[in-house]
């Protein structure tokens, strides 16, 4: 978006809407690709969901997921798509903050910064389990 034009709320909202849709599309394609691959290799016993064991660290920590996705592990690729999905609203909040800054609405830059901090805390604070 050109910075020279003062963005109206609505123009900016349309941009944010497109951002969200693109993020979901990319996430869905990654999940679909990983999923097809996972299903094509799924010959053994079905994964069991009746008793909760918790997803192992390779598929539940950021490090584990990135590591697995680089190695082309199908389940890690699905989790990578889910991470992209979770990151999509976070990106929206980040861009909203830039939008408010362009409008010089410092009160809302502050409000948005609080929301962003809470989201990043949730994603990256490893003590919350």
């Amino acid at each position, binding site marked *: 978006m050109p910075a020279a034009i003062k963005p109206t709320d609505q123009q900016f909202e349309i941009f944010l*809407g497109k951002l*969200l849709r693109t993020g979901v599309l990319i996430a*869905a394609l990654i999940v679909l690709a990983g999923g097809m691959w996972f299903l094509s290799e799924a010959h053994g016993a079905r994964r069991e969901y009746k008793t909760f064991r918790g997803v192992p660290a390779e598929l539940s920590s950021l490090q584990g997921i990135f590591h697995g996705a680089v190695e082309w592990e199908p389940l890690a690729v699905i989790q990578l798509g889910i991470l992209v999905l*979770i990151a*999509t609203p976070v990106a929206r909040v980040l861009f909203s903050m830039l*939008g408010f800054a362009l409008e010089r*609405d410092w009160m809302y830059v502050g409000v948005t910064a609080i*929301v962003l901090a809470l989201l990043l805390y949730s994603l990256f604070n490893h003590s*919350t389990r």
Partner: protein
Amino acid sequence: MNTVEFTLVVAIGSFFAGMLGSLTGLGGGVVIVPLLTLVFGVDIRYAIGASLVSVIATSSGAAAAYLREGYSNMRVGMFLEVATTVGALSGAFIAGYVSTSAIAIIFGVVLLYSAYTSFGGPKEPEKGLAPDPVATFLRLDGTFPADRVRGAGDAISVAAGGASGAREAYHVRNVPAGFGLMYLAGLLSGLLGIGSGAVKVLAMDQAMKIPFKVSTTTSNFMIGVTAAASAGIYLRRGYIDPGLALPVMLGVLAGALTGALILPGAKVKTLRMVFGVVIAALGVQMIFEGVRGKL
């Protein structure tokens, strides 16, 4: 069932949940957890993780369509997201300490409440209210397009002779009450892995007197952010299983998009009634199974 069959069956169920959720405006997330636990025998923690993922997908996927209409209010949304994200973090935190039976019972109560709202339908808040000092300070008041009437038989009164581009002004009221209710909505979202649309409507329409179309679109925008706040915690806790999230996310997303496509020709009122009955029945069963300690 082998893996492929299980994935397909769950995807089909999720597709219908997403389609009904988008047609009725109640969201698909609210039936995903009962569907997975009661029908497929999935542990409620895995079900909540998968549901949360589908909630982010539908919220973000629908946002582009909603935003073009120019109804949503960015400042209201962002201000209330402070309450919903704090709520979501508290909910996800509490979920680690509450028994699954208690979660099932709370879930059942929320389902019954959602069913109740689907019968009554939200009332359009009264108009012509005086400005509220807190809302004025926070610059929450806004306008919305007055000339376009669209969609689900919503009772949007049109400004007389609304020429193209005419916008109707509204004042936001009772900000502290709305903020408090939004914390509750976030808490339930984080605890149960749902979008909490019914509580958000209660906060924005009934407490804050925001026009129906504005509150619906703004709340859709907020749901994804709220769900993302607890999703990070659930991912680390190992609640989000890729084998389950795969059919649920893609199924709900495809269903929601299909729902949006067929919405103009759909009998929304009848659908809301049918969906309301289904949700109520699921709510009773969740409470029953929760009390028996089977979930």
